[in-house]
């Protein structure tokens, strides 16, 4: 997956709040069509980095070029070509999913078929429900549907599976894979290594506002093993999650 051109070029990106610098001059590129992951502990600066790229937060130093457009100079142009699923996403209550999508599409000057979008995230039977009636996994899927109304070049997902049960998480992974197949570049943050390994073509690991490693998951694991790393215990052929999925099945519960 190294064929695409660079769709996002981040250089020396910095964010300060008073005396503390939360993002310390990081640089990386995201290639067109790939799934790029940003991992790291809480407070590492993942969300701040994402929000600067999304033109939701001002950039104190450095630059972000997205699809050839300078984010700091043309935030409005950027908003037209990206889709965002926010960590604390909320939708107006008492507005049906179908109505929400029509409204969001109008913000981009577009008209969409809301049912088709809902079908793509398997929510067509909820078209006339209000968002406050959805389960956690349904909410996240709807959030992704709303981020796709403008057929974005890049889709940003901030911790999309946090708080979901294993079935809903697996379901969302399938959805993200299908979005990638449509040629949309995906940038996501996560706390789950299994998720990153499964979904991401390349990833950056952040800690204390810096990128401390960046490569494909396979290469990262290989490098670690090459340095002579060995797991202290024998790898079991199954873990508790396998047991759980075996007992409860893969079918979605919602």
């Amino acid at each position, binding site marked *: 997956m190294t064929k695409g051109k660079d769709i996002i070029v981040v250089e020396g990106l910095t964010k300060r709040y008073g005396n503390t610098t939360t993002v310390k001059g990081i640089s990386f590129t995201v290639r067109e069509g790939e799934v790029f992951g940003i991992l790291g502990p809480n407070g590492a600066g993942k969300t701040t980095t994402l929000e600067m790229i999304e033109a939701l937060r001002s950039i104190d130093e450095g630059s972000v070029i997205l699809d050839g457009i300078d984010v700091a100079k043309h935030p409005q142009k950027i908003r037209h070509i990206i889709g965002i699923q926010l960590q604390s996403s909320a939708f107006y209550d008492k*507005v049906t999913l179908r109505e929400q999508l029509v409204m969001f599409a109008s913000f981009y000057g577009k008209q969409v078929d809301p049912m088709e979008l809902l079908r793509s995230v398997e929510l067509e039977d909820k078209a006339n429900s209000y968002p406050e009636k959805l389960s956690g996994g349904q909410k996240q899927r709807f959030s992704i549907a709303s981020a796709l109304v403008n057929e974005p070049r890049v889709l940003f997902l901030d911790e999309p599976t946090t708080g979901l049960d294993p079935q809903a998480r697996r379901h969302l992974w399938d959805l993200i894979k299908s979005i990638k197949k449509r040629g949309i570049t995906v940038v996501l943050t996560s706390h789950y290594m299994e998720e990153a390994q499964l979904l991401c073509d390349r990833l950056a690991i952040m800690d204390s506002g810096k990128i401390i490693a960046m490569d494909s998951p396979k290469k990262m694991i290989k490098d670690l093993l090459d340095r002579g790393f060995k797991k202290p215990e024998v790898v079991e052929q199954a873990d508790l999650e396998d047991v759980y999925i075996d007992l409860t099945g893969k079918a979605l519960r919602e």
Partner: protein
Amino acid sequence: MRATLIFAFTQLKRFMRDPVALFFSLAFPLLFLFVFGSIFRNDSGISFDVAVFNRSETQFARQFADGLKKEDTFKEVEVGSFEEAKEKMGRNEVDTIIEIPKEFGQLNENQHPSGTLNVFYNEASPDTGRTVGTILDAQLREIGQQITQSSPLFTVNQKPTTTANLTQFDYMISGLLGFAILSMGIFGLANQLPAEKKNGSLRRIRATPFTRTQLIFGTLIYYAIVGMVSLVLMLVVALTVFNFDMRGDWLQLALFLVIAIMLMLGFGLFIGGWAKNENQAAVASQIVSFPLMFLSGVFFPRFLMPEWLQGITGYLPLTPVVDGIRYITTEGATLFDLGPQLAIIGIWLVVIYTLAIRLFRWG
């Protein structure tokens, strides 16, 4: 433009699905109208609560006292003793005490009934005493002329002007509508926007190309529709229940009300857009709404204020609204006649919407 309209339409649907919002926006102003309307309804013209003490035995005094009871201007209050009457006067339950002295109505040297009435009034309200005195004086003079068969040299001919026959309610409704516009403008929106900042729905919209100017005007459109529905309901109740006597043109009134709603919504959008949370919004709404409520002629007529205060309060945003509505409904004024009011409203519209857009904060 299409996005703004779809946004406004979506908000309107959301509003209609919310019983609490419906109640506060539509039913609450009606309750308010019923309460104030009932207080001011049958009061056409001035009347006084009087206690009458007839200490005279003469037939003339008896007839005169009975005549007072039939008079619309006086409402007789039943009291036991003179002391009780004075006590009630202290509590404003009685405006004046009319005492008919013992010798009232006795025949004088010309064989005509004569005498002097005593009118007691509270020192705190000399106007009331003087007015009652004047009315009684005029009545007695007329009776005197009938008895002596003489015609008066000078008379006052009272002719009603255009404002005649308007009830107190007809004057109050401009204040009631002004208050409704003020409260729906400031309190409704000033709370809604910070709540949406808190729950994250504005954050989600911020991630799209929808601008804050579009958001502000979309909200304006949706809320102006709600406001007009609310005012129409109030006017229907005013017409059917309180016999509101509309002297002006309904179209002129409708246009003026739309402008007035836009102005007051500007204040709500400004406060709600600026405030980061509901606490800030609550404090700011109180600071803005209280002076308007008490200094714009909503509850107290401005002509009761000292002149310097009348001058200043004339420039408050709600003053031209209340004045304008009153000129239309009681004097049949048109928008052309309301140039001074519309000028002040226009300046405020520019100021408040500039501030609302400039100081808007997404979160």
